[in-house]
């Protein structure tokens, strides 16, 4: 399991390749790359600053991977999340999950993202034409996370 919180950019191809080659019986790597959008809530965004809670961030991301591993038959998972100041089209986050088969890897990867969005202590502040503002948490993210508890069976 790998969890990294860093200001530097990351190399998606390298990370996926490392995860893929870790085992010769790996059949699938599902990954998610998040990018800074130039648009949020209808306003154009020129910059984004990510703050986090050092220590708790790493702990919560590790716990999320642990939960994913206990729920699905996956081999390994990786989370890299950037902090600091970013611009549109910059990469923010990479989640990658390896496994023997695709179904479990898809579910685990989406689960990790949904939990990361609602449990990992990161906060975004964005710069728009009208100044700086804190990004508000979205109800759709809470709903996405809830799916894994309330309608768990129908998702699987």
């Amino acid at each position, binding site marked *: 399991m790998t969890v990294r919180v860093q200001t530097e950019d990351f190399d998606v191809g390298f990370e996926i390749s490392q995860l893929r080659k870790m085992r010769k019986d790996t059949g699938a790597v599902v990954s998610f790359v998040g990018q800074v959008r130039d648009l949020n809530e209808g306003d154009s965004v020129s910059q984004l600053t*990510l703050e986090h809670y050092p220590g708790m961030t790493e702990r919560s991301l590790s716990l999320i991977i642990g939960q994913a591993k206990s729920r699905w038959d996956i081999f390994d998972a990786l989370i890299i999340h950037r902090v600091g100041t970013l611009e549109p089209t910059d990469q*923010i986050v990479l989640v990658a999950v390896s496994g023997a088969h695709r179904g479990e890897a898809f579910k685990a990867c989406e689960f990790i993202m949904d939990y990361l969005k609602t449990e990992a202590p990161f*906060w975004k502040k964005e710069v728009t034409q009208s100044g700086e503002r*804190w990004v508000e*948490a979205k109800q759709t993210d809470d709903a996405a996370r809830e799916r894994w508890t309330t309608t768990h069976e129908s998702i699987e």
Partner: protein
Amino acid sequence: MKIKLFYFARLKETLKYSTEDLDLPADVVTILKLKAFLAKRGDVWGEMLMGKLKVRAAINHELVDDKAAIADGDEVAFFPPVTGG
């Protein structure tokens, strides 16, 4: 009871505190009581911790709710709902 406190994001910005060490009165034993205790510092504290803003709390890096008990030596943090990813 001594604790270490952290504030993040909008709370840190508005309260103008990122961290502080506190020696709590004997009756401040839960997150809710700690919020009420801090709120007594004045307007902006009350607004931020007991107002309309959703505040989440963590004890020793674990998300907890208002009823959670605080123990001596704990690291307690207050912050808005998270917005990473």
